[in-house]
């Protein structure tokens, strides 16, 4: 039996909070600083919803690339400032009631707490601090001269790449992958769940619930 330390990897959207990356983006879109800017960005986002839905259904990677391109031209300072408000107004109230206890229990078990999310790092950094996470694995926006390029630093953290990121993290930090835990709500995170020794489905979607039943993974509810 290995004595190496272990970690608990938590997906964020739908697992720890009831929001998703669209909520964050919508918040930024509706807070552009000028009425015209807000109106334009909001209208552009609303009109793109069918496109988002279609690409999300087709390919999550393409969806993410498309989605993050809508950040192009935003000022880094403004995004950082708005992230603070985003946390207070959107994310904090959306934390599931059972989330703090789940994270605390993992910490009490001696696990390093790591959030793994396809969201942009500046949008969830405050949430990670709030939950007492030790580390954050998230997508990073590429900025040039203080402006968002709309492209994230590859590889995009989603699906199979979450599993890869977790594996790399464990190797880098000397953690025991087979003794570590992973928590997610979505079937799209199946690779992340399958890569650790102790996966668990949290408020799972229908496909993940079926997988959890088939593999007899524990199913946790944190909504109530």
């Amino acid at each position, binding site marked *: *039996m290995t004595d190496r330390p272990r970690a*608990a990897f938590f997906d964020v959207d739908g697992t720890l909070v009831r929001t998703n990356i669209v909520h964050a983006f919508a918040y930024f879109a509706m807070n552009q600083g000028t009425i015209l800017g807000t109106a334009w960005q909001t209208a552009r986002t609303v009109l793109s919803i069918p496109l988002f839905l279609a690409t999300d259904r087709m390919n999550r990677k393409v969806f993410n690339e498309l989605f993050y391109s809508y950040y192009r031209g935003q000022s880094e300072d403004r995004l950082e400032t708005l992230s603070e408000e985003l946390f207070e107004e959107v994310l904090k109230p959306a934390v599931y009631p*059972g989330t703090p*206890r*789940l994270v*605390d*229990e*993992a910490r*009490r*078990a*001696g*696990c390093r707490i790591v959030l793994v999310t396809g969201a942009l790092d500046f949008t969830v950094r405050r949430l990670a601090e709030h939950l007492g996470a030790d580390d954050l694995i998230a997508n990073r926006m590429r900025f040039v001269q203080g402006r968002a390029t709309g492209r994230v630093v590859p590889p995009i953290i989603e699906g199979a790449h979450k599993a890869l990121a977790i594996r790399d993290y464990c190797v880098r930090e000397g953690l025991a992958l087979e003794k570590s*835990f992973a*928590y997610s709500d979505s079937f799209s995170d199946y690779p992340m769940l399958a890569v650790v020794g*102790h996966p*668990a489905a949290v408020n799972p979607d229908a496909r993940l619930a079926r997988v*959890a*039943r088939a593999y*007899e993974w*524990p*199913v*946790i*509810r*944190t909504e109530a």
Partner: protein
Amino acid sequence: MRDPKSLRRFYETTEGIVTIDRDSPPRVLFSGEDLLVEDLPVGTKVIYAKPPVQGLPNVKAAIRRAINQPEGCDPLHALLRPGMKVTIALDDISLPLPPMRTPDVRQEVLEVILPLLEESGVDDVHLVIAICLHRRMTEGEMRRMVGTRIFDAFYPDRYYNHDAEEPGGCVQLATTAMGEKVIVSRRAAESDLLIYVNLNLVPMDGGHKSVGTGLTNYEGVKAHHTPHHIRKSHSYMDPERSEMHRSVDRIGRAIDEHVNVFHIETTINNRMFDGPLDFLMKREEDYVELDRLKLHGMRAMLSRLPAAAKRKLFHAVPAAYEVIAVAAGRTEPTHAKILEASWKQYAVDVDFQADVVICGIPFISPYNVNSILNPLLVQVMACGYLFNFYRGKPLLKKGGTLILTHPCSDAFDPEHHPSYIEFFHRLLPETRDAQVLERKYERELAENPTYVHMYRTGNAYHGAHPFFMWYWGENGRQHMGKIIAAGADNEHVPKLMGWDVAETLSEAIDIARSIHGRSAEIAMLHVPPILLTQNLR
């Protein structure tokens, strides 16, 4: 007035043991949620439970008498002071089995003592279900146990399940001379008075075990829930010969030194079935046409239902238990009175040990009320409870063969028993050695944050619980030469347990005879209802 035919059978209907003859009717055995009807070899001794002891005519009067004339202390009303902090701890849904008809005896006790507390100016009263590492009871189960009026008045702020994983929720009061940590719920420890309302189903329950295990945490219960303690218990249904109870008693005495504990103990008779299932309380010799009709009707219905529906059906039928004794006061004298009543109901004298013992495994155990009797629980019923249903010498000779009837399906309830799944599919294939399992893996599963969360917020047994279930069968496993699962629907589950498989009971008996010879002494423990063999020779 008995007719001559009945008179001829009078001996058979009053003795606890029936010896199978050539014209004996077949026996009825449980096989999970099914009923088997099997012919047994001539000479097989079938051991039956005693008839139910007459219930108390007025339970509330008996409760009042017990608390007004308690054992070894002042009456309850004399212990109460206005403004004091009182915790009332209650046994959980694992007692009795199946759950009794309402009103549950715990409700009756509460209906007597809560008005007394109120009249005495005691307002700070919490009702805590002493689940230790068992699953939390659901809201519906909690309501059923205490009745709607009490539930509405106390739930959820003042009527809740004990949480053995709440940070700071338990305190260590002392350490015994043997190094056992004495840990109890902080609320109970800080109360001016702790009233424990218990329901003794079998002699293993109650006494110091109530507070010492019910209101402690993993570290507390680990003191005696070990393979070592179970191996040295002969049996754990007989507290005087149980190493586990010796440890529990040391811990309990230390608790009594620090906490003002007032016990209200109750026990019930063995009237587990009545109405359409009342034939299960009878010997097959005593069946009348109506009983045979009920048996065949029940079997026909069960054969047409899927397993989940059969389970639902059996769990929906509450038992017709009646309260036969109530005692109150200090821990040990109170418990002694209840144990006496319990033995009076359950002890069946036997003067032999068998080479082969046959047991039907029923649909229920203390750990699967409203859930599945999974393979680990089948194991705990066979090697744990049923093997330990003895006082003095075990019914089975050392090295003998136990034949159990159960399908042993590879089915687990992921909400109630998530850690059992990992134990069974990940750990048991590696080793069946209880000591190795304890050393290598117990703490890992006990501290698994997923299981801790499911225990605290869902209805899951604690991560350490499957280990305790495995240890629970340890003295049985050490004693038995072979275990044969008759009627198992697969081979891998019995194989993982280290058992043999037979398609039918008669095939299992043939296998056992091939080991012990044609003259092997065969006995059948006709349970449920519960009985304990007593062989003090």
